[in-house]
């Protein structure tokens, strides 16, 4: 059991890849916004990479342990302290009954961090996943973010915690997050509604060259980018609506760049599953983790166009990278 003494700003139970295969029923997958850090945290403690752990947004979480476990924290630096002593990110530790882990606020670049506990968080799966889907209030612990007094059941570790502890992700595999006012390069494919049918070639060239500012009103549902006056290839959306960004309602891919009038919005893992606006690009699956570490109101994005084959190759490379064989004994 993991005891929550302070839930922080927004801490949720997530698993990977979340509640997949249900877009046609209106369910977004949910899961960790930064699945790279999330999966590596699990691998460090000897869990399957997708086991349920905690997504900690912007800090403030305090938890107490009630038995011996291996733990790891991967992601943004929130000044984590175990029994008052600073502990390192991207490294596994052994904790015992009575140990207390505290997170302060963000200490530098990045926005979310992930806590994996050996055995995983053993909340009941809902529709096949333990991931918390906040807009639908399902999954995780009662479909909500954590708060003081919560007690999270833990699973049986599959690896001896003492053996899993004392390992680290090598520095070469720890991402360096761009800082405040800096630019993230995000791989993306051309979307289902790009040029020449919906946008002009100039619109798409602008899209792949502009430094887009991430709005402060961005969250797990959508990442809002700058307003831009597009040229558009059409004068109206026809039967789909009066504006050229309108189309007949259709399904949206996860990670789609959804252009609503003048505003592009990246549909994140809690995003809508269908609608009637064009999607001119789709963030590559292996680049989705970057969204999780951007700071709303401060980060910039430049999209780098990749082909579908290149996007698939990136996923394979990422899956090979997040593997126990790449860890070091520390």
């Amino acid at each position, binding site marked *: 059991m993991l005891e929550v003494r302070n839930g922080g*700003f927004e801490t949720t139970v997530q698993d990977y890849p979340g509640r997949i295969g249900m877009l046609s029923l209106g369910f977004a997958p949910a899961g960790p916004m930064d699945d790279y850090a999330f999966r590596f945290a699990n691998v460090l403690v000897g869990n399957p990479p997708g086991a349920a752990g905690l997504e900690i947004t*912007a800090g403030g979480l305090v938890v107490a342990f009630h038995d011996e476990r291996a733990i790891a924290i991967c992601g943004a630096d929130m000044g984590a302290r175990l029994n008052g002593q600073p502990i390192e990110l991207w490294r596994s530790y052994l904790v015992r009954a009575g140990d207390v882990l505290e997170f302060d606020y963000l200490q530098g670049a990045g926005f979310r961090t992930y806590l994996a506990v050996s055995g995983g968080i053993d909340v009941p799966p809902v529709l096949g996943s333990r991931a918390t889907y906040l807009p639908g209030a399902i999954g995780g612990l009662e479909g909500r973010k954590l708060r003081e007094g919560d007690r999270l059941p833990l699973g049986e570790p599959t690896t001896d915690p003492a053996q899993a502890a004392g390992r680290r992700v090598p520095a070469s595999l720890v991402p360096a997050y761009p800082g405040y006012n800096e630019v993230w390069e995000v791989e993306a494919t051309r979307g289902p509604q790009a040029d020449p049918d919906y946008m002009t070639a100039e619109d798409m060239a602008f899209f792949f060259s502009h430094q887009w500012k991430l709005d402060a009103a961005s*969250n797990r549902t959508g990442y809002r980018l700058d307003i831009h006056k597009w040229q558009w290839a059409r004068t109206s959306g026809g039967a789909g609506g009066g504006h050229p960004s309108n189309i007949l309602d259709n399904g949206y891919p996860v990670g789609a760049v959804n252009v609503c009038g003048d505003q592009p919005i990246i549909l994140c893992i809690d995003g809508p599953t269908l609608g009637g606006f064009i999607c001119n690009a789709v963030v590559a699956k292996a680049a989705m983790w970057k969204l999780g570490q951007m700071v709303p109101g401060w980060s910039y994005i430049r999209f780098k166009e990749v082909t579908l084959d290149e996007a698939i190759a990136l996923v394979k490379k990422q899956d090979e990278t997040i593997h126990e064989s790449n860890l070091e004994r520390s």
Partner: protein
Amino acid sequence: MAEHTIKSPLPGIFYRRPSPDAEPFVKEGDTIAPGTVIGLVGVMKTFHQITSDVGGKVVRFLVENEEAIRPGQPIAVVSDEA
């Protein structure tokens, strides 16, 4: 007399008013009690209250209304002068 700096734990947009038409939560020169709300930080379409951990007089604000702020950024100075 000692001056205390109130910091924001969150990045986001700082607001001095509960709504665009309302009066500011506090003004410079006001005397406040510990726990008084001095502003809001808006991020991810939610609002988080910034409170003073000390009582005293609001000396000055260090950020403008609707300015983007970083985690740990000083927001206001409060003096514990009686």
